[in-house]
């Protein structure tokens, strides 16, 4: 923080992007009812998607979107950490490497050759990793994309100097609270709700489909108990592997590794 004699007017917010789709920082602009209010409570000092006047740090709260996927990213996240009093990651990419972490299980040279005629022009890392793999993170907000209400809660909690009230339980809790009929029990629809972190409000089951895990694993999971149900509902190990290895591939893979033998190891990516 600045030690200038002038009192700091408002806490300074920085929003930073790494490898991502921009959807999580867009969530801030999608806070139509709260945006102008947030801007009176916080000075939006750095937000390239929203402002042409980026100001240098230090920042009181930095929201970081996206995963670390290039050599330049590794240096940049360290500089941002050094410039930030609180660093919060927003979204599956920043928290778990994102959908682009599918490369972590693949041959990136072959991926490059598949997409680019001249792979040698492209600078990339062989992995897409979460921010926490590189610097200490104060709070991780999950979701692909994050939930608007949860983002407002994180910002509010920061302003109030308290811990964000983001529950760690599974989607099933939200689904029951919403009064949904269980899609697995009633319709035999495979659903990752029992092992997925709450936050979306159990959207997929509300719309009649199974949860596809976009918030990553819940705080405690029992994947081995869920797998037989998915088998019963017609999924092969390969299907289950793909189901888990999508938007939070590294986080669900870590759960599989803690609970070995759950599904076949070499499922397709």
């Amino acid at each position, binding site marked *: 923080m600045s030690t200038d004699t002038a009192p700091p007017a408002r806490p300074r917010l920085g929003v930073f992007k790494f490898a991502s789709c921009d*959807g999580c920082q867009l969530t801030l*602009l999608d806070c139509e*009812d709260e945006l102008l209010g947030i801007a009176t409570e916080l000075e939006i000092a750095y937000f390239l998607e929203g402002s042409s006047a980026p100001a240098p740090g230090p920042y009181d709260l930095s929201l970081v979107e996206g995963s670390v996927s*290039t050599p330049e990213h590794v240096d940049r996240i360290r500089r941002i950490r050094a410039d930030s009093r609180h660093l919060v990651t927003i979204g599956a990419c920043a928290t778990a490497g994102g959908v682009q972490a599918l490369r972590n299980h693949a041959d990136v040279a072959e991926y490059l050759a598949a*997409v680019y005629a001249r792979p040698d022009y492209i600078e990339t890392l062989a992995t897409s990793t979460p921010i926490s793999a590189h610097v200490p993170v104060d709070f991780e907000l999950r979701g692909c994309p994050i939930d608007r209400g949860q983002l407002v809660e994180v910002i509010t909690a920061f302003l109030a100097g308290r811990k964000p009230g983001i529950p760690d339980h599974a989607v099933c809790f939200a689904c029951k609270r919403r009064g949904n009929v269980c899609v697995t029990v009633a319709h035999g629809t495979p659903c990752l709700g029992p092992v997925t972190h709450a936050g979306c409000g159990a959207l997929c089951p509300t719309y009649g489909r199974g949860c596809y895990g976009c918030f990553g694993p819940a705080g405690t999971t029992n994947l081995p108990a869920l797998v037989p149900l998915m088998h019963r509902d017609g999924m092969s190990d390969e299907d289950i592997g*793909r189901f888990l290895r999508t938007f939070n591939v590294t986080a669900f893979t870590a759960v599989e590794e803690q609970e070995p033998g759950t599904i076949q190891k070499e499922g397709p990516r």
Partner: protein
Amino acid sequence: MSQPATGSQVLRIPALTRVEGETALRLRIDDGTVTEARLSIYEPPRFFEAFLRGRAHTEPPDLTSRICGICPVAYQLSACRAVEDACGAVVDGQLAALRRLLYCGEWIESQTLHIHLLHAPDFLGHDDVIGMSRSHLAHVERGLRLKQTGNAIVELLGGRAIHPVNVRLGGFHRTPTRTELRPLAERLRIALDDAWDTVRWVARFDFPDAECDADLFALAETDTYAIESGVPTVLPYEKTLPPRSFPLRDFPDHITEEQVPHSTALHARLDGRRHLTGSLARYAVSGHLLSPLALEAAREAGLGAPRPRAGTEGPGWGGVCRNPYRSILVRAVEVLYAVEEAMRIIAEYERPAHPYVEVPARAGVGHGATEAPRGLLYHRYAFDDAGRVTDACIVPPTAQNQGAIEEDLRRMVQAGLDRGEGSEAELTRLCERAVRNHDPCISCSAHFLELDIERT
């Protein structure tokens, strides 16, 4: 810092702002002449086309929506159309109408975002919407309200505004009842007034002279303003050349992508020429198919009345707007149109008997294209007998527009230099405006403007 028009130097802009994605710009100026303008998209590669391989035929819609947080519906629906094409499935009737309604929601929220939060600050001399809100609060509040209505449509039909969950091959997981749609109709009536007021507000902006000399490329329908489907149609820059269309399956024969050393986005060309997709192209190709109200708004905004060519069907010539600064006007008119369309679809809605049609997997190749808010978005997938993706190709609008944007940049910087605007700050402002005119979605193309000017 004012720079002389001659001499050798390098100038850098740290970041292109108020766009979606990361881009650098390099300009070379020889004795006061811009000899090179290169847009370097160095959005890190995310390899979607590579990791789609081996995935089930049901997966591209959800997976590819993650390419872009601003236009996920465009990705979902282009992917659906391509897979359905490969599998021989046809989605029509109320399911097709619901898809158009969902897309109208994305058009309203995305175009309104660009108009009010990203683009308008350029015309009013502000760095961002927060600064702009101090002197233009009512306009900002109106923009946020309109954007919220677009989001409300996507949220109701899709579950959430970013990466909706309710889209699936063949239609939706669940279709809404008429009663559920009713609150949207109430909001849309207010949005119609807001959209009109936005057109009138934007029409008062000061538009610099400029012309984009690229071929215009958009989907066309015979009876409606193309959004979620259509036939690829080209309006050549030379007025002596007739417009032409080609079947979507021939897209790979006409649009070629090449890699350039300075960008992670591939550069696309149309029959070897520079082309532009997006609002200006859509208005030129399909403007005569706008609703009477939207046409009235276009006329009032000074866009010129589009009309079909005498004795022909298809794209019209009249009212073609080639000034990229005025794209904000076309967007405002398109928002008005999308609001009206949404109202119409809701008024005519009958809940379909089943929320989707079956799309059984089969081997083959399918093509899909829709009009993302920022231009034509094409997907192609090949599948094996088991319905696994063996090959994927995605051509986003910004990759197609890159050549036209670079030419805009060259012309606008040259005009600026000729006016004596040579400082880093002046050139940066010019360049950023030139790029923002096209509402680029840089995450899609492979984000950030770094201006690197070399002068000799």
